């Protein structure tokens, strides 16, 4: 009995370290291929379009409503201390530092990781990745590098858009519903926000974009066993990308703003 438990613990740990090792090797080689020629520019552009441009509606809508609801809640909370003037400040900091990148990252993770895992996973189970190899094309370079490059560069742009729309969402609620003076609200926003707030959010976005693409590619690449395997890869990609985003968010926040 005791032996069995030890064996079980051992197995779990071995599986964990095995997976970590495989992921590390995969990541290292993906990054290496992203920085070395040849670059498949056509594919990079296509991925940028599908990650960046086609995520705009999702990002725009979530950012607007997040900003709006943030303003509403902060107003309710701060009115207990007669501190309603803090609404503009908290909305802009909340959006640029945290909610823009995190909610944006999670939304894109759902969209993009899943799509990547499904596409690459299907290529794996239908032997298209094997075919790439026989055609003297490195699948890491052809499939993974363009996605990593596009993910890492597009997410900051998306989050910048999310920041603007999110702040506008807060502004809209504050001026239309809560009776703030529009000019004053905007002036407060612009006075309060600091470069660091925005930049830290954009750095987070770049990290999230990398993680989203990495998880989509990794799970797709390692999918096995037909349609069911691809389905599993898709789910795993979204779940692991979302968890990694939240963990990375904590780490980057600590690095920027101290513990």
């Amino acid at each position, binding site marked *: 009995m005791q032996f069995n438990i030890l064996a079980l613990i051992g197995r779990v740990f071995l599986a964990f370290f095995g997976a970590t090792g495989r992921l590390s090797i995969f990541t290292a080689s993906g990054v290496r291929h992203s920085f070395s020629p040849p670059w498949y520019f056509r594919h990079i552009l296509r991925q940028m379009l599908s990650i960046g441009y086609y995520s705009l509606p999702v990002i725009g809508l979530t950012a607007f409503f997040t900003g709006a609801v943030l303003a509403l809640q902060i107003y309710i909370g701060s009115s207990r201390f007669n501190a309603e003037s803090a609404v503009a400040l908290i909305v802009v900091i909340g959006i640029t530092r945290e909610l823009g990148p995190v909610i944006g990252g999670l939304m894109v993770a759902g969209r993009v990781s899943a799509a990547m895992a499904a596409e690459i996973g299907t290529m794996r189970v239908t032997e298209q990745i094997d075919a790439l190899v026989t*055609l003297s*094309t*490195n699948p890491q370079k052809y499939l993974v590098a363009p996605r990593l490059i596009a993910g890492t560069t597009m997410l900051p742009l998306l989050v910048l858009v999310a920041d603007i729309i999110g702040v506008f969402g807060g502004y809209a609620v504050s001026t239309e519903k809560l009776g703030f003076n529009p000019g004053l609200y905007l002036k407060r926003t612009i006075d309060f926000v600091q470069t660091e707030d925005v930049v830290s959010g954009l750095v987070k976005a770049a990290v999230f974009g990398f993680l989203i693409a990495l998880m989509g590619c990794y799970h797709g690449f390692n999918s096995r066993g037909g349609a069911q395997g691809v389905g599993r890869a898709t789910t795993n990609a979204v779940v692991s990308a979302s968890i990694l985003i939240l963990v990375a968010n904590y780490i980057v926040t600590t690095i920027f703003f101290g513990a």
Partner: protein
Amino acid sequence: MMDVTSKIALTDVHKHFGPKQVLNGIDLEIGAGESVVIIGGSGSGKSVTLKCILGLLTPDRGSIRVDGQETVGMSVGDREAVLSKVGMLFQGAALFDSIPVWENVAFGLIAGQRMARPAARDIAVEKLAQVGLGSEVVDLSPAELSGGMRKRVGLARAIATNPDIIFFDEPTTGLDPIMGEVINDLIVECVKEVGATALTITHDMDSARKIADRIAMIYKGKIIWVGSVSEIEETANEYVAQFIHGRVDGPIQMDLRAL
């Protein structure tokens, strides 16, 4: 040990999946410019043998030499060099469904040899014509083709770079008899006129007789018989005789349950 004329030499190749021993000591030599056909029951490891030669699967044991060069355990860069001489038709065609038919055929030229796209397209159109596909399919997506058409696109892709060594995994399955004959002629032409070395897997004995210089039969993970087309008709080997005449009675027992 190896004589210089053998283009591909497999010695004692073993491969298992889980508890299942698929290849159990494959020995096979293929001379330069020779056309060898592998026959054998469904699930006997024919496709696995090809994938081991291509390096898509790593054998557990044994040696595989291409042009006298050991390929088992070879580095990725060296393998790319070997594979640049090789063309492969996958059993399931393995076409890239994100790009049109002509780009599939031209893939090795554009990605592998860095040829300009218009020139590669011209070659692709010509290769497609050789497999009996007209200009109307050139810009279609692979998903819009029938099974037999996909197979032929895969064939066109395999020979597009005029490779030195060509592997065909069941080139004529799923084709009508006339088209099958066209493909047989094309394979013969690749070998006889272009001087390529070909290794073909087929269940179609008419096709095997037509394209093979030698036929090898795989059974229980070993090559149990090798000989020329004329020899196979009068072989005393009961396994081979049963197989090529498709008899139910004989030493090869199918795992069927009586109705």
